[in-house]
């Protein structure tokens, strides 16, 4: 089946305006009778809920944290792109669009990416109006900095806490609607199923993480803003509770999963220090504005303190290999080069698993105060974690999983192939192709939530008003979904009870399996992939899934706060998703952006695309084995039409 992305006709710059002009509207007096569920309260979720509430819809918002403000968008450090062209360095909507398409290695949908660039300036205006304290120049104007993959300074920031400030702005707007009575808030709830009736998304099943109650919620439409599945790697920069379960349950109810193998490995993270490490911490890409990446020229110098390695014996390999972009090459290029250096034996630090990010030149040229003002909190964070002072000693960094470009398939209106199920933010696949540029995730979350979902969802409600009959939680679709949720929880409890009877060497904790899953995914579906290991990964995922159910032990009280039970359900879903990621990576027999198949590279070691055969979005349809586990997946393709840009080999040299 070929998927129709439902893109409006016309020139690129007129598409979104034309679509908005043709959208049907819901009359003000009808809006309070329309129920909308928004799952997730990060940038996409909070901005969707706030905007839909302001319009007058009856919105219910759900999050797994104890407060909506804790969503993982809060941890985004560096900034948000917009085409304001305040620095007068030649930026424009076209240029941001082009950088994003090129950065994504020509694997994203032109029309969506262009619209993202069009909305970018409005986001800054919206956030400023909300009182978001962006960095300012002395004259009172907004300040900008540069990010990877761009030759203009278009990134707006609030020290190293841009995500926090933007999220608190969106959260504040949402809380205002809670106060106004248009938004009801359901914190510490995990969405465990999507309810589909007559082919339409009509509600969700949640579990209250404080008391275990399983609840039914009805709606006329559901907006999924539940972020990415990067925690499948166990070690990542994602938050501990970030997971893929809500999206995966939608997938099992019929929503297609698109390009799941596109995973971004962020080049500048603090390397792993030990076996029990629970997460990796990102050091913002903005640091590459002033930091220089290097390793020793001579492998024998790797053990020496960096201060004893003179300038002449250092290899600033990004500046050497990519003179045009230098330390500001896109993330996939920077990550692969760091891995290359470490693999070739140039790794530094106690575990020889890092490269240096050095600020000495910038401190000498611009002064310590300048660096402190721009990156103070990042330097502090680094020191807290490593015990080393980056003003004195260069940072040690290494790539880590950070973001997934893959996600649920959506059309131009951000609606999945299940009518009434909209997907926004990192949870959808739409805008970044095979690699996301820095400072574009915040932009996409807010573009989706403030400026797209409110209009496209209204259109859906208006167009389908005769098919969206009144719905009650007593209907059989809800009975069935709730039964399934309860069965899934009981399966974990039963498995644990069974496995407790086994000898202890045949038992595993949830975290044991989770860590092994992470290792398996990292080793085979990580920075580099190759056919044989991907084939074996598919089998190993199935084996590990079998082992999980036959060895897992966990605390089984289902009516209390029980973190292990929550995580067990997420790991069970990840074990299925992992198989699909490996399959998707195997099927895509080309390199593109972050998907680097070693079989397909240029003589200089860059990703080599195959536009003839793979210029499409791979959208996978789930096939159940009758027992709630995947039998396999059917592939659907959305052909990527490049009407306005010419496909080229990326060059940052």
């Amino acid at each position, binding site marked *: 089946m070929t998927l129709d992305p439902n893109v409006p006709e016309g020139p690129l710059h007129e598409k979104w305006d034309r679509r908005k002009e043709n959208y049907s509207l819901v009359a003000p007096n009808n809006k309070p009778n329309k129920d909308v569920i928004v799952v997730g309260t990060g940038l996409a979720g909070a*901005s969707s809920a706030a905007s839909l509430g*302001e319009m007058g819809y009856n919105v219910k918002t759900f999050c797994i*944290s*104890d*407060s909506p*403000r*804790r969503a*993982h968008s*809060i*941890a985004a450090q560096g900034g948000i792109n917009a085409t*304001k062209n*305040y620095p007068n360095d030649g930026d424009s909507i076209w240029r941001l669009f082009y950088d994003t398409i090129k950065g994504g290695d020509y694997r994203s949908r032109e029309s969506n990416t262009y619209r993202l660039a069009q909305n970018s300036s*409005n986001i*800054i205006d*919206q*956030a*400023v*109006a*909300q*009182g978001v*304290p*962006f960095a*300012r120049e002395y*004259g*009172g*104007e907004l300040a900008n900095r540069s990010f990877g993959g761009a030759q203009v300074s278009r990134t707006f920031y*609030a020290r190293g*806490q841009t995500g926090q*400030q933007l999220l608190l702005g969106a959260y*504040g*707007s949402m*809380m*205002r609607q809670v*106060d106004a009575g248009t938004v009801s*808030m359901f*914190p510490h709830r995990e969405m465990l199923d999507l309810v589909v009736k007559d082919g339409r998304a009509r509600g969700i099943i949640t579990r209250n993480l*404080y008391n275990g109650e399983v609840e039914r919620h009805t709606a006329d439409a559901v907006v999924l803003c539940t972020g990415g599945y990067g925690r499948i790697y166990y070690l990542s920069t994602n*938050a*501990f509770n970030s997971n893929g379960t809500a999206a995966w349950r939608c997938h099992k109810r019929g929503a297609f999963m698109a390009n799941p193998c596109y995973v971004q490995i962020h080049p500048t993270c603090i390397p792993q220090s*030990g076996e*029990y*490490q*629970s*997460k990796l*911490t990102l050091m913002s890409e903005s640091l590459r504005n002033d930091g220089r990446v290097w390793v020793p020229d001579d492998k024998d110098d790797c053990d020496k303190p960096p201060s004893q390695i003179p300038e002449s014996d250092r290899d600033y390999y990004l500046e050497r290999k990519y003179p045009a972009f230098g330390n500001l090459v896109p993330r996939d290029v920077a990550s692969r080069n760091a891995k290359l250096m470490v693999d070739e034996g140039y790794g530094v630090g106690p575990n020889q698993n890092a490269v240096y990010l050095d600020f000495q030149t910038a401190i000498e040229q611009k002064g310590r105060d300048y660096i402190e003002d721009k990156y103070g909190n990042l330097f*502090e*964070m680094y020191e*807290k*974690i490593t*015990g080393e002072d980056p003003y004195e000693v260069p940072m040690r960094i290494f790539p880590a999983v950070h973001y997934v470009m893959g996600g649920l398939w959506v059309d131009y209106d951000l609606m999945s192939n299940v009518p009434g199920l909209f997907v926004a933010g990192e949870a959808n696949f739409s805008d970044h192709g095979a690699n996301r540029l820095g400072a574009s995730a915040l932009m996409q979350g807010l573009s989706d939530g*403030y400026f797209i979902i409110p209009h496209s969802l209204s259109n859906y409600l208006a167009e389908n008003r005769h098919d969206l009959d009144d719905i009650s939680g007593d209907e059989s679709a809800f009975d069935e979904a709730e039964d399934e949720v309860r069965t899934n929880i009981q399966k974990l409890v039963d498995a644990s009870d069974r496995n407790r009877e086994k000898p*202890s060497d045949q*038992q595993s904790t949830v975290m044991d399996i989770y860590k092994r899953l992470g290792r398996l995914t990292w080793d085979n579906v990580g920075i580099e992939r190759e056919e044989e290991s991907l084939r074996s990964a598919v089998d190993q995922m199935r084996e590990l899934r079998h082992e999980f159910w036959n060895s897992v*032990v*966990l*605390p089984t009280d289902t009516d*209390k*706060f029980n*973190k*292990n039970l929550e995580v067990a359900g997420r790991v069970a879903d990840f074990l299925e998703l992992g198989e699909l990621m490996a399959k998707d990576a195997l099927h895509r027999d080309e390199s593109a952006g972050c998907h680097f198949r070693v079989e397909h590279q240029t003589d200089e070691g860059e990703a080599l695309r195959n536009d003839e055969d793979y210029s499409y979005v791979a959208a996978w349809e789930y096939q159940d084995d009758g027992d709630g586990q995947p039998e396999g997946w059917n592939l659907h393709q959305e052909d990527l039409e490049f009407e306005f840009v010419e496909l080229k080999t990326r060059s940052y040299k």
Partner: protein
Amino acid sequence: MASDSMDFHLKVWRQDDRESDGELVDYPNVAHDISPHLSFLEMLDLVNERLIERGDRPIAFDSDCREGICGTCGIVVNGQPHGPKRKTAACQLHMRAFDDGDTIYLEPWRADAFPVVRDLVVDRSSFDEIMQAGGYVSVQTGPKPDGNSIKIGKDVSDQAFDSATCIGCGACVAACPNASASLFTGAKVSQYAVLPQGQPERERRVLRMVHEMEDQGFGNCSNIGECQAACPKDIDLDNIARMRREYVRAAAKKGSPNPDEAEV
């Protein structure tokens, strides 16, 4: 100097749920062979793995970003919210801050407005209620004037930012003998009081937020300053002073300190 492997004696507050009575439980032999490089929460992860393996109920605690920005984690460690290191959330605390053989007490945030969910997990929805009463600038989504049409001096912007970095963890409340939420509320009030965008709702905001803070059962501020000492973001006590000034100013200007009676 910390050695490569450390042993600790834990005393942990265990409370099954909101209604149950809790008690400090001794764990003399679970936190053994701990690397000083582990974060405090990773030490607890490891302890929980050991408890699960032997069939005991793990210690309930919550965390999310584990890099000090989401505000989810919060444990009173040896009587200090977030533990002994200044400007450091529990998730960024490392075991190198302790000595081999130490006894470590772990307790939840204690405040009427933060009921215990289980063990070390508390319900902080009262903070959301305070935010709901005015922790925002009321603007609709839609076309707005260009961002640079509002000029804000760097000093003012930086000042607003310093207030805005609050992560809403609640350590200030846990540290305060009155369980006051004045630092949390004051930080939000201050951010908008200094910014031009916050002016139209300046009086309404402070009156409503302060009243909500009291309604939620938080105590009053008596200028002790433990809140700032415990705050992982070092939010300044000046924010409380500003909130009070704003409160008095608003009450005088609008005819009443009660938001229902004031002309706001």
